[in-house]
């Protein structure tokens, strides 16, 4: 192999050839049950990444995950500073519980993501919708939190049952991811 103009990162070495027609992972159904910033982003990045890679993606938000598709909350998600041992391990847990600390930590995290050109939640959802991904809310959780269609972002295709959610995975090469 001769030298390349643009050095490729090591990560791209093991990937499947771009022109390979057959692909066994055809669709991902991602269930997001959490409302913390990092969990929601994991769901959004995986869904968007699947679409960008030519795969189908469906997102099903349930329980606190509904915050990610609720108009008033989507762009104000927080990261947990208490009960999160991976967050600043050298810092005493009590500090994480101080008033305003969680807001500050979330602000810093969002600022860092902005630097990396990662869109905010509502823009991410728009991107997924534009890429042909489908977004759904869980009926039971919506009932529990007294949320209706008007409370959700316009990209939300519907409020559906568990049975409907399983039906989203119909077809060969379909996979579930639970967050």
């Amino acid at each position: 192999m001769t030298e390349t103009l643009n050095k490729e990162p090591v990560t791209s070495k093991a990937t499947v050839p771009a022109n390979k027609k057959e692909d066994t992972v055809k669709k991902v159904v991602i269930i997001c049950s959490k409302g913390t910033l990092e969990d929601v982003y994991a769901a959004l990045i995986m869904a968007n990444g699947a679409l960008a890679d030519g795969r189908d993606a469906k997102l099903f938000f349930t329980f606190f995950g509904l915050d990610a598709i609720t108009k008033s909350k989507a762009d104000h998600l927080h990261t947990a500073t208490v009960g999160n041992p991976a967050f600043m391990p050298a810092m005493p847990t009590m500090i994480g519980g101080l008033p305003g600390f969680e807001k500050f930590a979330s602000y810093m995290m969002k600022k860092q993501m902005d630097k990396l050109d990662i869109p905010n939640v509502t823009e991410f959802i728009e991107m997924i919708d534009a890429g042909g991904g489908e977004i759904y809310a869980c009926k039971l959780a919506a009932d529990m939190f007294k949320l209706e269609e008007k409370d959700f972002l316009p990209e939300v295709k519907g409020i559906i049952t568990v049975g409907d959610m399983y039906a989203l995975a119909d077809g060969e090469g379909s996979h579930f991811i639970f967050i």
Partner: protein
Amino acid sequence: MNGQQIELNEEGYMKNPAQWSKEWAHQIAGEYEITLTDKHFEVLNWLREKQAEGVALNIRKVGKSGIVDIKQFYALFPGGPLKVSSRIAGIPKPVSCV
């Protein structure tokens, strides 16, 4: 192609974007069953320009290029728009996760 040896990496991406030609683009697009239009070429040229400037490309940036929005980009290059268009544009495979 045209007596010229085009170097590709193991994934079929062109190693040297300077070897790119419209004929090449049409040939690779054919592999994806895409018939290239002027709009396709507008996107391809934009990608080549940005890549030459050293911009780390991602779908979001293409959506803000003023040439196509994200939905149109997916429609023009089905099956992973940036991956496919980069290969047709003769530039390296994008490495963005967003």
